[in-house]
């Protein structure tokens, strides 16, 4: 089973977690003044990269907190997890820390 390192609880089995989509997507501050295109991009358009992806997870059957995670979509390897609210990490640094 895949072990996911929750930033609060440590390594836990993946069945305790739920995936919650791409991270660091800010809601437009003033929705009524955005164009349809901008709103559609906020709602539906995602980067969907092959490689490193920064995404939200929720440790729903544990501490129940949302957190962010850097995962390689090719190998499914999780390189880093950090509490929600922290700034987006530099992916070059994350790769270096993970020794890749």
């Amino acid at each position, binding site marked *: 089973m895949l072990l996911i390192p929750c930033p*609060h609880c440590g390594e836990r089995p993946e069945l305790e977690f739920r995936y919650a989509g791409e991270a660091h997507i800010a809601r437009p501050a003033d929705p009524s003044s955005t164009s349809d295109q901008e709103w559609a991009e906020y709602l539906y358009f995602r980067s969907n990269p092959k490689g490193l992806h920064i995404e939200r997870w929720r440790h729903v*059957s544990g*501490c*129940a907190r949302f957190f962010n995670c850097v995962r390689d979509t090719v190998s499914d390897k999780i390189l880093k997890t950090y509490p929600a609210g922290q700034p987006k990490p530099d992916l070059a640094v994350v790769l270096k820390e993970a020794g890749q």
Partner: protein
Amino acid sequence: MSDLKITRRSAFEGLHPIQVEGSVTVAPTPYATRFSFRGDAKAASACSKGFGVLLPNDLLKAESDQGRTAISLGPDEWLLIAPDGEVESLEAAIAKALGDQHQSLVDISHRNTAFTVSGLKAETLLASGCLLDLHISAFPVGMATRTIYSKADIILWRTAPDTFHVELWRSFVPFVWGLLEEAAHEV
């Protein structure tokens, strides 16, 4: 006017006892008062005064004193357990200790229920559906966490080297009990 008579029924009513001689026993615990408390560290320390037990700041820890227990489930979430029938008195005491601090205190006495798994094979029996490493070195006495047993959310708390306290929603009892009963044949 209709004449309603409300009686409390145990979630364990009608279930067969689970007991393997000299190996493992699963037994329902008595009714209890339970609260879900949410708040920051400052609110938690104020709540400790009203509740009478220190709400642990460290995650995944249980603190007990004189029949009351506080379990830290997450960075701002605690489960409080006290003897049955103390809902009103504790609510008042905690509200007084907290004053106007931002927090949430929810009575979940009737939503949750609990049982204990004890005996030499307690770890083995729980491992039938629980994915965590339950060895005493990885899950010491006093550790508590929300996790899953098969598909059901449970809160697992090790109260002694060979005893676990399992909290769960009462509607999950028949499901979890049935699986434990099956697994008990094989421990």
